């Protein structure tokens, strides 16, 4: 797997966002699509029903319930969790499902969507798969920069969950 990309821009996703939660995607190295959209496109043929369900769930969280913590599974390694809490997550998946979608969940009002992959039933942890590891590490990287910038006031998080400020990571 390649190392972390050069430029990551956090962009607002109006298709999923609503009154209860704002969703952001990551444009990597000036690509036209976020890595969340790439994840959707790559997997919509083999896993159409799963992809559709993921999008519907996120859309309803945006409009109706917010991104409550029980809707996600805690991920990230020990060092990250100790510093930044359980902010790197995977969207909750049932046992019979395959797709894992990773994100940084700042609160029930703000989620940064990353990428993901199908998880083999032969493994239990993301650390056992280099592709899953790549996506989790990417989200930990984004999470770390985000928290540092929030702390330095380079990024602002409004009470309604809107991110603004320096949202480009070099």
């Amino acid at each position, binding site marked *: 797997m390649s190392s972390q990309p050069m430029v990551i821009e956090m962009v607002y996703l109006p298709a999923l966002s609503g009154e209860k939660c704002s969703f952001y995607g990551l444009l990597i190295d000036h690509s036209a699509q976020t890595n969340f959209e790439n994840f*959707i496109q790559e997997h919509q043929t083999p896993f159409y029903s799963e992809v559709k369900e993921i999008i*519907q769930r996120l859309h309803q969280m945006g409009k109706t319930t917010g991104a409550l913590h029980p809707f996600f599974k805690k991920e990230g390694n020990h060092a990250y969790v100790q510093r930044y809490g359980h902010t790197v997550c995977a969207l909750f*998946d049932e046992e019979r499902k395959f797709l894992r979608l990773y994100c940084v969940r700042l609160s029930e009002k703000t989620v940064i969507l990353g990428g993901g992959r199908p998880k083999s039933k032969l493994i239990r942890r993301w650390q056992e798969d280099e592709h899953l590891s790549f996506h989790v590490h990417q989200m930990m990287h984004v999470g770390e920069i985000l928290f540092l910038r929030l702390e330095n006031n380079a990024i602002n998080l409004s009470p309604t969950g809107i991110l603004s400020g320096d949202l480009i990571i070099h």
Partner: protein
Amino acid sequence: MKKYTQARVHPSPVLNEILAESTPLEAMQTKNKLIVASRIAQVLEEREWNKSELAERLQKHPSEVTKWLSGTHNFTLDVLSVVCDALGLEISDLLSAGSKQVVYRQSLLLESNASVVYELEPKWSHAEQLPAQVQRKKTKKQTPSPTPPRS
């Protein structure tokens, strides 16, 4: 005061296309699963219970409660009844979206101008839904006995 630049808005034909392919029924099913899970999570939080406590009370494995709270679970009426019984709720209480303050009242009497006493059921009730939960009790309000005329 520092001025921050808003994030760029990224319209997504890919996401819009898939959302457009979802039927209203599918959207409603997804929404209802999330609402039920969020209401249960909200009541647990208000009662300061964690999911292990609920699991223990229901003699279930905590992983089962985790699944209930995930917003993916397709509840049966029987399971919903068990959850509601443990939380002192009606099933209808789990189907309303939005944050509602849940308060516990052993007995609360509201008196109307018509001298009819209304009594709330002694259980968890949504503060915002009080009128619907009010049980009309068909007893006339007792009027104070008149003071005997002075002789």
